[in-house]
């Protein structure tokens, strides 16, 4: 239960408009996510294309997080970030689904 509460808190916090991007998240994106999400390889939603992400976000962030953890379509488990934490993945989803790179 405690872990669920933490996850809900994380997801809620991340959606606040005041959410500030951690430079480390940008580094993780460049290191691990850009390889596919930068160009939309294999139908991966292109980062910072809010329209492309809107459909995915409509499934709920918990679903997107679960997909990132387990792998989805062509995306391997944990994306390409083998050492990411759950918090990292949430941050990355928020970062990539934002309007433009910050």
């Amino acid at each position, binding site marked *: 239960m405690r872990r669920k509460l933490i996850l809900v808190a994380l997801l809620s916090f991340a959606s606040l408009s005041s959410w500030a991007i951690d430079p480390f998240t940008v580094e993780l994106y460049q*290191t691990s996510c850009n*390889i596919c999400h930068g*160009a939309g*390889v*294999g139908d991966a939603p292109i980062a910072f294309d809010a329209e492309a992400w809107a459909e995915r976000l409509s499934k709920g962030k918990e679903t997107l997080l*679960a997909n990132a953890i*387990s792998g*989805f379509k062509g995306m391997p488990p944990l994306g390409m970030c*083998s*050492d990411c934490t759950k918090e990292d993945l949430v941050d990355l989803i928020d970062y990539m689904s934002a309007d433009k790179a910050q």
Partner: protein
Amino acid sequence: MDIKSLKFSRRHALKATGVGIIAGMAGSSGCSSAPEKAAGPQSIDGIMPWSNWSGNQVSYPAERARPRNIDALTKLLKESDGKIRAVGAGHSFSGLVPTNETLLSMARFRGISNINTETKEVTAGAGTRLAALGDELWENKLGMINMPDINTQALAGAIATSTHGTGQQFGSLSSYVTGLTLVTASGEVMKCSATENKDVFDAARCNIGSLGIITDITMQMRDSYYLKERSEMLPIEEAFEKMEKLRLEKRHFEAYGLPHANHMLLIEFEEVSKEESDAKQGEAVSGDAYETFRTLADVIDMMPFLRGAVMSIAPRTVGVEERYGQWNHIFGNVRDMRFNEMEYTVPAEDGLACFREVLNTIKEKDIDIIFPIEYRYVGEDDVWLSQFYQRAGASISVHNFHDKPYMPYFAEMEAIFDRYQGRPHWGKVHTKTEQEFAALYPQWEAFKEVRERLDPNRRFINEHLETIFSATS
């Protein structure tokens, strides 16, 4: 690295899986189109799983640590006493990483921290990815002496497993390490080099993550350079005749043997001037390998009984391909199709015989595989647990798609490699245990002595490493 151009370049698409556009048939992609399914492990009771890139290794670490600096790392080690396994890019297919205790990320230890412009030695953080290192080196007019064709690994992971490229005059990445910093199980920080803690240095340059946590690595580099890559599909006997000559004459050389086929792809690399590279870079000197193998894959998928015929006929249509560019762009490839891999290194002089036996066995036993077999040469080194210790090697890699069974095929291949005294790649699938390693590595006991001294309570030993460094021996 220009990932976008890599993805859409036919040449790169071919090499991305080692002539592996075949993989398009298998839904085995890393980030390419595939059936909609959640293929990997799920969280259990809120605990997030860890999985490697291919998905054949999974664990549920109770804790995940990511120290911000070396002080935080030493504090973590001093104030805890449980098992710890470090994780890099997750590109090992063997069970080096899985732990249900603490999984340690070195993602805060990234980037180049020092460049000695006189000696061309460069110090980089353990978590630095090889691709990023290549970009930083290029910006500083430097180059790695050699580089693997997958470049997404973390530097410490690549060193820990003696990861290598190809070229008989070049050793593995481990052989270019001139210094490193290691934090032991007790939190002691050790600087290691040929003149400082020499025994630990010789062990740590290929350490399988079993000695402690490496925080930075210093490597010998050289001036930046440009490369020309040329690939050509040849009838198999003609290819075998040329391979020894190419091994000796070309800076780098590798081959891809096609299962059930009578052709082989030979790839050679040569250093060229900037002027030649610039002049040729824009030219599309490309054959039709990509299209050929995509078609081939589709046909085999629909009509598997035609496999042998298709694999023999289709390669004949592949033309010569060439490309030019800066060293880190030519070496590095995106593997956007997921697979599992076994690799053994046999003595260089036995390489061709072993390679031929591998290809013949696949045919004779009608093994259901279409993934090309990779063949490379690597120079000998003096790193205790390197596959190339005092022995120049021919490294032979066999693969299958990540969602296909691989062990029956790999078992057949491993039996062949054993006959040639093959040494397995530490980060790839193998079934070797301690007794066999002791016979393969002259410095095995010396390594074990260092390991037990630095980690007496076996904090860095997980289930997989228990089979390699057993507690009772």
